[in-house]
């Protein structure tokens, strides 16, 4: 019986192995290209006041006592400003919206807000943020 030479089978085996290896890496590359969910911030999260969400350090209690009587904390938490910006807002509220005199507390409130809710450097236009990638159904 004629003996079939071994090397064509060896080549076939190599080809099959290469295809399997190739498809494995291809799959890995696809899996890597799908982004993971946003990771939590690397830095330690500051403690939050459970009722209002204000960062619970320093003079936050003075802020809560004076700044959540008319509107909720969420109006404050949305905003970012310099010390001058926060002070301007306070003066506008005093002049037009019935906010009372804050006395010594004004400096403390402005200092707290300017420290914890200062403008962030965002450039001319920020990048898009996607929290949850999903499959678009055909």
């Amino acid at each position, binding site marked *: 019986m004629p003996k079939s030479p071994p090397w064509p089978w060896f080549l076939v085996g190599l080809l099959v192995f290469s295809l399997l290896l190739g498809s494995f890496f291809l799959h890995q590359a*696809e899996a890597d*290209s*799908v*982004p993971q969910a946003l990771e*939590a*911030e690397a830095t*330690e*999260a500051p*403690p*939050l*006041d*459970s*009722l*209002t*969400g204000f960062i*619970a350090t320093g003079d*936050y*209690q003075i802020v*809560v*006592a004076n700044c959540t009587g*008319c*509107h*909720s904390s*969420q*109006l404050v*938490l*949305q*905003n*970012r*400003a310099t010390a001058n*910006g926060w002070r301007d*807002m306070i003066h506008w509220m005093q002049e*037009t*919206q*019935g*906010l009372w005199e804050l006395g010594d507390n004004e400096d403390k409130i402005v200092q707290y807000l300017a420290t914890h*809710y200062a*403008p*962030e*450097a*965002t*450039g*001319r*236009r*920020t990048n*898009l*943020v*996607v*929290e*949850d*990638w*999903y*499959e*678009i159904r*055909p």
Partner: protein
Amino acid sequence: MGHKSGRRHFLKRGAAALTGSMVGLQVVFADRIPAGLSLLGLPTAGDIPGKRAGLTILNDRPVNAETPPHLLDDMVTPADLLFVRNNGIPPSQIDIDSWTLTIDGESVSTPKTYSLAELKQRFKVYDYQLVLECGGNGRSEFNPPAKGNQWSTGAVGCPRWTGVRLKDVLAEAGIKEDAVYIGYYGRDTHLSGQPDKIPISRGVPMHKALEDESLIAWAINGEDLPLMNGYPLRLVFGGWPASTSGKWLSRISVRNQVHDGPKMGGMSYRVPCKPVAPGSKVAEEDMCIIESMPVKSLITYPKTGGLLRDRRNLSIRGKAWAGDLAVRKMEISIDFGASWQEARLSPPPNRLAWQAWETQVSFPEKGYYEIWARATDTAGGAQPMVLPGWNPKGYLNNACHRIAVQVV
């Protein structure tokens, strides 16, 4: 995005049960709380009367909530998806049998008062689809940041409104020759609780008041106005900042001067008369009242963050509008504005309604893409790709809408 990180951070991480304490306690293990667990006591959109879950709540007092773009996919915005913007507190005791609308002011010939029933019977009733957009829609993107509600793209909608023409009501009362402006008054109350303070009282010049589409409205899509959108009666001026469309309407004054109610003057709903550099301090006398809103558009399908698997073509669609004008061209880019393709654009159902557009995009290869949408109005003005001119109060951001897509 920077401005929202504080709020999102708060929503994701706060979850300790409330105690009786006035200021609340520190959330001690904040960083170990599972993501997505919402803080007790914080409202969800389902808690806003008349509104569907899915709106993004910016504030619970006063209530302000916006609509994510993918929920604005209907041609006619459903009432329970229309954004909510409160300057004060909506009225609580509403007796529609005793509700009246008074027309007065120094430039009215004969002051009139109507009940709701009289209003509906005495004047011809009209239906219009009209775009309502907050002047501050888009504020969250401005840098340096502007104070106020940090809207992203969702303070806009276009439901069908039913009412009578303001011009017909004013014609019956008679308008003197020196009439310049109308100003509205409503029955919402001030946040401070002070009964003599008015939360907001704005208006429009006579030429806008007398347009066919300027309505005194009582219904959205055939149903009573939601409380949060002005039940039982409001004004609707399509294409102008929505703060001109007074809610819980009880009085319209015909003025012989530019109206001067609260939030009409100062810096409110005004932009610098001449363009300024970002972060500039602008004097009040150099600020001009916003009138027609600028051209703008939204991609309402698909929702941002989509993975397109094993295919390269995608149908996309959305809406476009342009204040007092109309949209004449709609374009899409998938390469950050380097090239644009034109989309199919429908005419509006009536003047001052938004227009639907749709197209197909074809991605050349796998990867991360952004789809940018740019509308051009009938005067030739288009949306900017970066932010438009900075202004101290963060109004009128009509930069191109962007969504992210990955082809995998």
